[in-house]
C-alpha cells in the first residue's frame, strides 16, 4: 500500500528526481497537446505516426556515423539531430509522394512509415555488429525511459515546450488560416507552404523531445489523444489548443506520478492510459460534442416527435371522438408499444384523457393537434404547388418537416399559399380510411 504522504510528496514535487520527471512530462504533454491540435485540425493526425517511426533510422544512423567518426556514439544531441533530420525528411517525403502520385494519404503514410522503420531496424542490426559499438540503450528510444531522465533532458524539454508555445502564439492567426482555409490563405498571398513547413517542424520537434520521455510509439498518443479529447469540449481554435495542452500536461503530471509511486509501471504507458481516461471522460461528458449531451438532445427530440405524431394521428382520425390503440396503430408505421408509451406520456402532460372505450384528446391536446395538422398540410400544399411534387408523395416529406416548422416559417407559408386561419383539407387520402 502506498502511503498518502508519498503521493502528496510526488504530486507536490518535493523530491528532486521525481519532480524532474513529473515536470518534464507535464511540459511535454502541454507541447504535444498544442502541436497535436494543429495536426488534428489539419486532418494530419497520423502524420505524427509516420514522423515518429521515421525518427528511428535517424537515431541509429546518427549513432553509426558518430561511432565511425570516433566520437561517443550515444551523444544525445547528436542522436536527436539525426532523429529530427529523418523525421523532417519523412514529413517532406509524405507530401512530395502524395503530390507526385495522387494516391490517397493513408497509402503514402503507410509506405513511408514502414519503409523508414524497416530501414531503422536493418541499420540497428548492422550497428550491433559494429566493432567496439555499444548500441545498448538505443532501443530505449522506441519505448522511452522516463524514470532515468536527468536534469539536461528536463531543461531540453522545457526549452522545447517554450519554443512550441511561442511559435504557436506568434503564428496563431496563420496556423488558424492553414487549418481551416488553406486555399483562401494562398489566394490572399500568404506563404502557406512556409507555414506548413513551420507546423511540420513544430510537430517533429515535439516528437523528438518525446522520444526520450515516452518513446516513439507512445508520443503519437500524446499528439493525438489530448487534441481529440479537447474537440469534445469546444469548437474554438484557441480554446481547443489550450485545453488540449492542459489535458496533455495533466496526463503527464498524473501519469508520471503514478509510475513514480509504483515500481514496474512504465511511465510512458501510464501517461498514455491517463490520457485515454481523460479522452473517455471528454467523449462522454464533453459540453460541446460529448455523447451524453448528444444523446440527451436526441432523446428529447424523439420524445417531442412521438408526441406530435400521436396528436396528429388522433386529430386527423377524429378530433372529438374516442380512439382505441388498434385504430391508432393502423394510422402510421409504429408499434403498439410506441403508441402506448406516447399515450401514457400524453396522459401525464394532459393532452389526452382515458375513456372506458379508448382515448380522447383534451381541449389542450386538440389545440396542439390542430396546430400540427395544419403545419403538416401547409407544407404538403407548399410542396404540391411550389415544388411540383405529386400529392401521393408529399405526406412523407411533410412528416419530417412538420416538427421543425417555427411560427415565422408558418407565417411565410400562409402568405405564400394565401391560407386562411382554418386547417386546409388533406390533399391526399388519409391513412386508415378517415377523411
Amino acid at each position, binding site marked *: 500500500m502506498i502511503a498518502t504522504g508519498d503521493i502528496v510528496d510526488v504530486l507536490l514535487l518535493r523530491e528532486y528526481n521525481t519532480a524532474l520527471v513529473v515536470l518534464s512530462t507535464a511540459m511535454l504533454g502541454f507541447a504535444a497537446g498544442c502541436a497535436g491540435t494543429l495536426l488534428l485540425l489539419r486532418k494530419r493526425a497520423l502524420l505524427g*505516426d509516420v514522423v515518429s517511426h521515421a525518427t528511428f533510422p535517424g537515431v541509429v544512423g546518427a549513432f553509426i556515423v558518430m561511432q565511425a567518426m570516433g566520437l561517443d556514439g550515444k551523444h544525445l544531441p547528436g542522436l536527436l539531430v539525426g532523429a529530427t533530420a529523418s523525421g523532417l525528411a519523412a514529413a517532406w517525403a509524405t507530401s512530395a509522394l502524395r503530390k507526385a502520385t495522387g494516391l*490517397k494519404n493513408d497509402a503514402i503514410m*503507410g509506405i513511408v*512509415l*514502414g519503409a523508414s522503420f524497416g530501414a531503422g531496424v*536493418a541499420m540497428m*542490426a548492422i550497428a550491433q*555488429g559494429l566493432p567496439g559499438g555499444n548500441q545498448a540503450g538505443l*532501443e530505449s528510444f522506441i519505448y522511452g525511459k522516463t524514470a532515468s531522465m536527468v536534469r539536461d533532458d528536463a531543461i531540453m524539454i522545457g526549452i522545447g515546450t517554450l519554443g512550441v508555445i511561442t511559435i504557436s502564439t506568434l503564428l496563431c492567426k496563420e496556423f488558424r488560416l492553414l487549418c481551416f482555409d488553406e486555399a483562401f490563405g494562398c489566394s490572399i498571398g500568404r506563404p502557406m507552404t512556409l507555414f506548413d513547413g513551420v507546423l511540420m517542424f513544430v510537430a517533429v520537434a515535439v516528437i523528438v523531445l518525446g522520444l526520450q520521455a515516452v518513446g516513439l510509439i507512445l508520443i503519437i498518443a500524446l499528439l*493525438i489523444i489530448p487534441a481529440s479529447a479537447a474537440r469534445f469540449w469546444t469548437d474554438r481554435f484557441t480554446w481547443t489548443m489550450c485545453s488540449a495542452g492542459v489535458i496533455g500536461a495533466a496526463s503527464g503530471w498524473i501519469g508520471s506520478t503514478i509510475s513514480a509511486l509504483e515500481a514496474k509501471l512504465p511511465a510512458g504507458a501510464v501517461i498514455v492510459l491517463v490520457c485515454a481516461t481523460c479522452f473517455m471522460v471528454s467523449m462522454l461528458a464533453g459540453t460541446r460534442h460529448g455523447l451524453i449531451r448528444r444523446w440527451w438532445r436526441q432523446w428529447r427530440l424523439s420524445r417531442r416527435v412521438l408526441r406530435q405524431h400521436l396528436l396528429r394521428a388522433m386529430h386527423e382520425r377524429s378530433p372529438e371522438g374516442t380512439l382505441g390503440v388498434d385504430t391508432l396503430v393502423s394510422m402510421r408505421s409504429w408499434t403498439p408499444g410506441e403508441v402506448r408509451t406516447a399515450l401514457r406520456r400524453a396522459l401525464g402532460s394532459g393532452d389526452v384523457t382515458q375513456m372506458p372505450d379508448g382515448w380522447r384528446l383534451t381541449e389542450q391536446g386538440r389545440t396542439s393537434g390542430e396546430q400540427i395538422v395544419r403545419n403538416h398540410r401547409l407544407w404538403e400544399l407548399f410542396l404540391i404547388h411550389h415544388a411540383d411534387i405529386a400529392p401521393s408523395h408529399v405526406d412523407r416529406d411533410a412528416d419530417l418537416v412538420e416538427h421543425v416548422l417555427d411560427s415565422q416559417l408558418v407565417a411565410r407559408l400562409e402568405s405564400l399559399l394565401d391560407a386562411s386561419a382554418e386547417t386546409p383539407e388533406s390533399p391526399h387520402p388519409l391513412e386508415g380510411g378517415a377523411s
Partner: protein
Amino acid sequence: MSWEVDGMVILVGVAAALACALPGVFLVVRGMGLMGDAISHAVLPGIALGFLFSGSRESVWIFVGAAIAGVTAAVLTQVLHSVGRMERGAAIGTVFTVLFAIGLILMVRTADSVEIDPHCVLYGAIELVPLDTVAFGLPPVLPEMQLPAALGPILIVLGISAIVIALLWKELRLACFDPGLARTLGFNAGALHQVIMVLTAATCVACFEAVGSVMTVTFIVAPAATALLLSRRMLPVVMLALLLGGVAAVLGHISAVTVPGWLLGGDVDTSSSGMMAVAAGGLFLIAVFLAPGRGVIATRRSLRRLAATVAMEDALGLLYRLHERGEARDDAHVRHLLEADVRIGPRRLERVLRRLQQRALVVCTNGSWDLTEQGRIEAAGLVRAHRLWETWLSTRSSVPASHLHSAAERLEHVTDPDLASALQREVGDVDHDPHGRKIP
C-alpha cells in the same frame, strides 16, 4: 545462401507478403491502409493476455489473444469514428496507441513469469524461422520435406483470404469503389467492409510473429499502392500486388544478407524483415518514377511535350499576326517578341524555331521569318480558333473584355477543326472578333 536457412526465410517472407497484399489492395482502394498499422500494433496486449491467461508460450493462446485484440482495435476504431464522430486517422491513432500502452504495462508486469519481448512484436523474428521446422509432405505429389512451422498459420490465412475474395470478388469490388451504389443495389456495404477488416486482422495476427508488425503494415500498403500506380483495373492490380509483394520479400532477404557485406566488408548481415520493408518501399519509389503514364518521368515528359507544342503554336500565331499587321519579321525582332510573349528562354526558343523549320512550317530567308504555305494554313487555324473563342466568350459569357485574350489564348491550343466550326455556327455569321480583327 542455403535452403535450410535462406530458403525458409524467403518462403515465410513471400507467404507473408502474399497474405498481406490480398486484403491490402481493398484497404488501400478504400483509403484505409493504416488500419493495418492500428491492428498490428494493437495485438501486443492480446499476446500479453494470452500469456497471462494460459501461462504458456503455446502459440494457440497467442493467436487467440492477438486475434481478439486485433478485432477489438478494428471495432473500437469504427466506434470512435461513427459514434464519437472523430476523423478516421485520429481514431486509429487513439486506439492503437492506447492498446499498445496497455500491452506494454502487461508485459512489464508479467516479465518475471513469462519472457516475452515487445521488440519481437515490432520487428518480428524471421531469422529464427528456420530453427522451428516440421516435416511435411503429400507422398505421391510432394516428397516429404522440412518446412518452417511459422508457414502454417500464414498459409491458412492466405488460403482463407484468397477463397473469400474470390467468392465475393464482384461485391467487394463494388463496395470498395462505390459504397453508395452498392447500398442502392441492395448489397450490405458495411458487412463487406467488415469482411475485409476481419481478413486484415487475421492476416496481421498470422504474420506479426514471423515478420513483425512494421513489415506487416508495409506489406499491406506498399505492394497495393505500387500496383495501383501501374494499373487501373482491379484484377491486374491484385495480381501485380501479389507479384510485387513476393519480389519485395525475396529482394529484401537477399539484400539483408549481401548489402552489409558490400558496405562494411566481412561477413555481416542485417535484419531480413527490416530489409523486406525497405525493398517494398524501394519498389514503390521505382514505380513512382517509372510507372508508364502516371509516373513522375512519364508525366514530366508529356508535360514537356505539351509545352513544346504550345510554344510552337504560339510562335506560328505570332508570325501570322505580324504578317497580318504587315510588320517586319526580322530575326531579332521575332525572337524578342517570342521571348516576351510566349515567355520561353532563348535556348528553348532556338529549339522551337528549329523544329518549326524541320516541319517546313516556317522558313528563314535573309534573316527574316516567313510562314510556308503549310504553316500559313496551320497558323490560320489557330488564329481562327482564338478569335472565334473571343467572339463567343464576349457574347455568351460574362468574361470581361480585358480578360478575353488570356482565356482564348489557352483555349486555342485545345480546339480542333470540329470544335472551331461548331463555334462558328454558335456565333453566327460574324467575321470580325471583338477587337475588330478579321477571323480567318
